[in-house]
């Protein structure tokens, strides 16, 4: 066993930290307050190479391994980058672009990936539907083959990047069988007749990440926009779980590191009863509990990343454990951070309340905590 990063990874982390603190973190508060998607910040992520970090160099990426990619995500969080921007990046790179990378034809990869890597195009993934959330297999959106096209009818819900995306990976039923079978994946471009995005949904947290319904009304996409084979869609969606349980979780963990730094600074400066509040055991214990969560959670994300780098099949049990722990066990430390700051913690100027709101998504998005428990119980 060895938990060390390579010297190159450590150097890369420092670079990401410097970049994010200078170019992205100062924008976080404003874009969260306005609930506005930070297009410029997103482009900067692309220009720095984050969006396509794990893509092959020939397709606009850097060829980084999964551990390095997860490290980038954690570091962005640690730098104080807005949770909404990181969620947008995660959905773009790991749920949309990576699916094209993993399952696309050479032509599809060459057409979409360089522009997704640079951030010129924004990607999203449409799986969840109004009637099919935790019960993914109940998805009802249909795609019928008609000549040289597939015609898609249905709708998707809670789609991250939905209102701003240029490219969508959409899952629709092509076969007659219910359940997991008969689901296929398609690439749908913005502007395709019959494809519209709903208005941005105002959310409790990750407010700068725009989320909407996607509506398909006789939306005809070229047959060559089928991703992989017909009927292979569910497996493709499952494969995004590896990223979801590592690269998409890592910013939450990194974000808690950022919050911990804020708490330490506040505990040193804030004086009550004649001394810094950091001298009170109750405050020290809160700092400790935040630190303990961070250290406990980090290894779970990196374990999944490392296993993926080793080419091992996804361990669904370990993936569910990671999601469940980061989701459910982060709530206490996030609350501690807010309470430690007292009234100031409740104000928007202090990052802790934004992290508290953003983090509340962790037990819900990408598979609820109850679904993780269901998976674990089935696999025990």
């Amino acid at each position, binding site marked *: *066993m*060895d*938990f*060390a*990063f*390579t010297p190159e990874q450590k150097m890369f982390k420092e670079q990401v930290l410097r970049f994010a603190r200078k170019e992205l973190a100062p924008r976080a508060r404003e874009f969260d307050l306005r609930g506005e998607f930070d297009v410029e910040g997103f482009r900067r992520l692309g220009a720095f190479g984050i969006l396509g970090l794990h893509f092959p160099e020939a397709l606009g990426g850097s060829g980084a391994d999964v*551990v390095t990619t997860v490290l980038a995500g954690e570091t962005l969080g640690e730098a104080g980058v807005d949770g909404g921007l990181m969620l947008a990046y995660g959905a773009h790179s790991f749920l949309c672009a990576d699916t094209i990378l993993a399952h696309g034809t050479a032509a599809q990869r060459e057409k979409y990936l360089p522009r997704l890597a640079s951030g010129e195009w924004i990607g999203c993934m449409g799986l969840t539907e109004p009637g099919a959330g935790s019960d993914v297999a109940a998805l009802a959106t249909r795609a019928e083959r008609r000549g040289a096209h597939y015609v898609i009818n249905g709708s998707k819900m809670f789609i991250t990047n939905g209102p701003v995306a240029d490219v969508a990976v959409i899952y629709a039923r092509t076969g007659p069988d219910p359940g997991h079978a008969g689901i296929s994946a398609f690439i749908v471009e913005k502007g395709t007749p019959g494809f519209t995005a709903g208005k941005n949904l105002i959310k409790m947290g990750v407010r700068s990440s725009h989320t909407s319904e996607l509506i398909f009304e006789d939306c005809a996409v070229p047959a060559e926009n089928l991703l992989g084979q017909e009927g292979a869609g569910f497996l493709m969606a499952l494969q995004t779980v590896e990223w979801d349980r590592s690269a998409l979780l890592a910013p939450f963990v990194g974000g808690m590191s950022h919050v*911990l*730094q804020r708490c*330490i*600074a506040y*505990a*040193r400066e804030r004086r009550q009863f004649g001394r810094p509040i*950091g001298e009170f*055991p109750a*405050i*020290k*214990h*809160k*700092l*400790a*509990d935040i*630190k*303990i969560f961070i*250290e*406990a*959670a980090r*290894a*779970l994300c*990196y*374990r999944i990343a*490392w*296993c993926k780098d080793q080419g091992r099949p996804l361990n669904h*049990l*370990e993936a*569910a*454990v990671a999601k*469940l*722990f980061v989701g459910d*066990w982060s709530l206490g430390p996030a609350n501690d951070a807010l309470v430690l700051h007292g009234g100031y913690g409740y104000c928007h100027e202090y990052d802790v309340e934004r992290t508290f709101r953003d983090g509340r998504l962790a037990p819900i998005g990408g598979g609820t905590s*109850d679904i*993780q*428990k*269901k*998976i*674990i*119980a*089935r696999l*025990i």
Partner: protein
Amino acid sequence: MDFDLGREEIVLQGKIKALAGGADTEGLTPPALKARVKAWLPELASLGYLALGLDSRGSGIPLLAAQEALATCAPGIFLAVETSTRLLGRLLARYGNEEARREFLPPLLEGRLLGGVVLPPRPRTPNDMPARPPEAEPLAHGVRLTGRWPLVINGPIADWLGLPARSPAGVAFYLVPDSAPGLIAEPAYAPLSRRGLMLCDIDLNGVEPPRGAAAGPFPDEDPLEELRAWEDDILIAGSLGIMQRCFDTAREQAKAPRGKRKPLIAHQEHGFKLAEMLTLLQTARLLAYRAAWTAASEPAEGGVLRHCAKVFCTESAEQVASGALQILGIEGYREGNPAQAGYWEAKVYQVAGTATEAARSQIGDAMLAKG
């Protein structure tokens, strides 16, 4: 980065688990427990278990992997073995004088000698200081020890005890046989003794150790902090054992056929509880191994991570054991069931060594100092 145990570590774990059997110690008297432990020691010695971590080789991951295996399959003897070997044995190996190492290490490592030890409390915890902390009065031919130590680990069962005493030069450890004139061992703490945790108070009424100081004197706290860290490492490993046993017991019960009725695990409330338990177990295990690796590879960072692991693993052990009790129902509450034993032990592990409140304070202090 590598998340797999090495082949040697896995093989040793398997050999340790294969020794399991006859390690149930609940309800044993001190003499009976001593006999049980001493029967195990040579077997463990033959596997190389006792020598792990006594020098820098085998510290960190290999040691924790082996400790976890023993704590899982032989909880009743785990603390006794570890106290003798990893506390007293390592103290002698790292800091003992030549004579003490020559005389005591071979029988310790061969499993022929069972040791006990007490660690002095930290100076900044005055409430923990004993009423009469032992002092070493210099004599022409040695020292005379007078005072009283509470909480001597393995006190009721050890052949030799490593007892600290203060002299003008600092704290030194003296090796004293259990039969030394002037040494009075109070009865073992109950009900801890019935659970395999052998503690007692030791009165030293003019005890003259047969030899001089075995280790020390230590003019400052540094070596003693290291001993306390070793103690925490043992408790972290023990916690993993508690969790694994409780989880396995609960899972087995939950999956057991119940005739025409669905097994318990088919009911969501039980399945979900097992899921939460496994989540804590896997998370705690990773944190414990990372803490062990960091302590061995990056010692400067090891202290905080060790305290994080101590808090998380011992508190998770309580939660996992509690979950097991819920699933097992009244059966889990019966003496002899791993769930009730684990629930009981987990509380002890939280207060022993660096108590979780103290560990949290130390983590907080470290955060505030470092920023």
